[in-house]
């Protein structure tokens, strides 16, 4: 994967099994967003190929809602390629969106927008939900709340989740397994419990000696 002459991703392979929640952590500019864009077909690789099995829905960095359309329409457009356009499963998952159904998406709070973005992706009935920067700009309690809904969905429906996070601690807590991406390469991979103890990972992503 290249941008001009710069190689953004190089021979990256990751797998997320059904029912799994997997984290992808890495510093700014490591290539996490590029990887998700490649997986969801938004970017075409410069060499080699991208292969993935299963349907992926991508919750993009920065939410990318249709800000002039209302919440209902945002959700329904998420189902463009799906058979059912009924948004009620999303309202069941995030009941706080129900009263906002007719509100302009651009006017919602960050947390509400993230729920709409996740809901819109779920409308495509994916096998894998890939979320870029779940916690971006959100208060910890909102992140907790959204994460709780995601875990529940993962347990109940077996939906696979790939969580891209700046906040490595959050990501490792939520997910059973994780990949560490550095300048376009996977440098670490393993169960969250092991990565949490890894000194290199601690230094780079968990604030070093502050972690006890």
């Amino acid at each position, binding site marked *: 994967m290249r941008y001009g002459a710069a190689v953004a991703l190089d021979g990256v392979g990751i797998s997320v099994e059904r029912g799994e929640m997997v984290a992808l952590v890495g510093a700014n500019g490591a290539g996490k967003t590029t990887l998700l864009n490649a997986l969801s077909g*938004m970017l075409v690789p410069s060499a080699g190929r991208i292969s993935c099995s299963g349907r992926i829905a*991508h919750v993009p960095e920065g939410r990318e*809602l249709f800000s002039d*359309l209302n919440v209902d*329409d945002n959700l*329904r*457009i998420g189902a*463009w*390629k799906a058979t059912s356009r009924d948004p009620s499963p999303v309202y069941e998952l995030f009941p706080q969106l129900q009263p906002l159904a007719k509100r302009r998406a651009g006017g919602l709070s960050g947390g509400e927008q993230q729920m709409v973005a996740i809901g819109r992706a779920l409308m495509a009935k994916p096998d894998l939900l890939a979320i870029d920067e779940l916690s971006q700009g959100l208060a910890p309690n909102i992140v907790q709340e959204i994460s709780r809904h995601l875990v529940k969905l993962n347990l109940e429906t077996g939906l696979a989740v790939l969580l891209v996070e700046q906040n490595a601690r959050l990501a490792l807590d939520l997910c059973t397994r994780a990949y560490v991406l550095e300048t376009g390469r996977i440098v670490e991979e393993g169960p969250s419990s092991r990565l949490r103890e890894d000194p290199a990972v601690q230094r780079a992503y968990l604030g070093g000696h502050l972690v006890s």
Partner: protein
Amino acid sequence: MSAFLQYLITGIARGFLFALLATGFVVIHRVTKVVNFAQGAFAVLGGFIAYSLLRAGVPHGVSEAIAVLAAAAIGLVFGAITILGNMTPVGSLITTIGLAILSEAIAMIAWGTTPLTFSGIGGPDIQVAGVFLQTQYLLLIGVSLVVLVVLWLALDRTYVGKGMTSCASNPYAARLAGINVKRMGLLSFAIGGALGGLGGVLIMPLFPLTYDGDVSLSILGFAAAIVGGLTSPGLALVGGLVFGIAEQFVAGYWSPANESAVALGILLLLLLWQARRHRSEEIA
């Protein structure tokens, strides 16, 4: 009194022409964010094609229908040139101006420089409150009204219409959802072409068109579209009627020479008003 009515009815008819063009601007802008200054060219080319078909003996109705389809096809080609190259918005705007100039050249070579007209559907003139009206006026108003309302509902109320709108709102997210954004853009250009062509074939029996008539049509259509912020088909219709009626009253009671000056003056005020509204929305 009858002069007043005459101007009013003529103005309404012109207003629907502008509204058709304005809706072309709106549809294309809502899907692609492009301001298509070749909009008036669709009307001129559509009208001229109908003129040639009628002269070749093709019956009324069929000629007009073929001309509208041809205008849609021209719209598709213009759309392909404008949006498939991933140009910046300014690049696309310049491209549409270039295409308008190209169409004028083609129209001049193929049809010459004299104003062209053809007789509309026959039918006796009807008398309304002391004014004689050609049936063509009613045809223009009736057909435009139906087309505009249907299109308006289709854009605002249907799923495909919302999908089209989402393309301009956030093309990246629209692609993520699986929408073929380019194809939607091409569709909008084809619709814009058909709307322009329809305006051309309906107006030509009442007001002859010249090969370079597209410029003033584009400006007035754009002005009407600006009333609805380039996004609302309903307000574009209102805008079209305002400009059509204003044009006929200025021409009738004052002087036809002042028509465009007044129209451009109103356009300027509208643009200033829009700019103010945008600014206060940003602050709000």
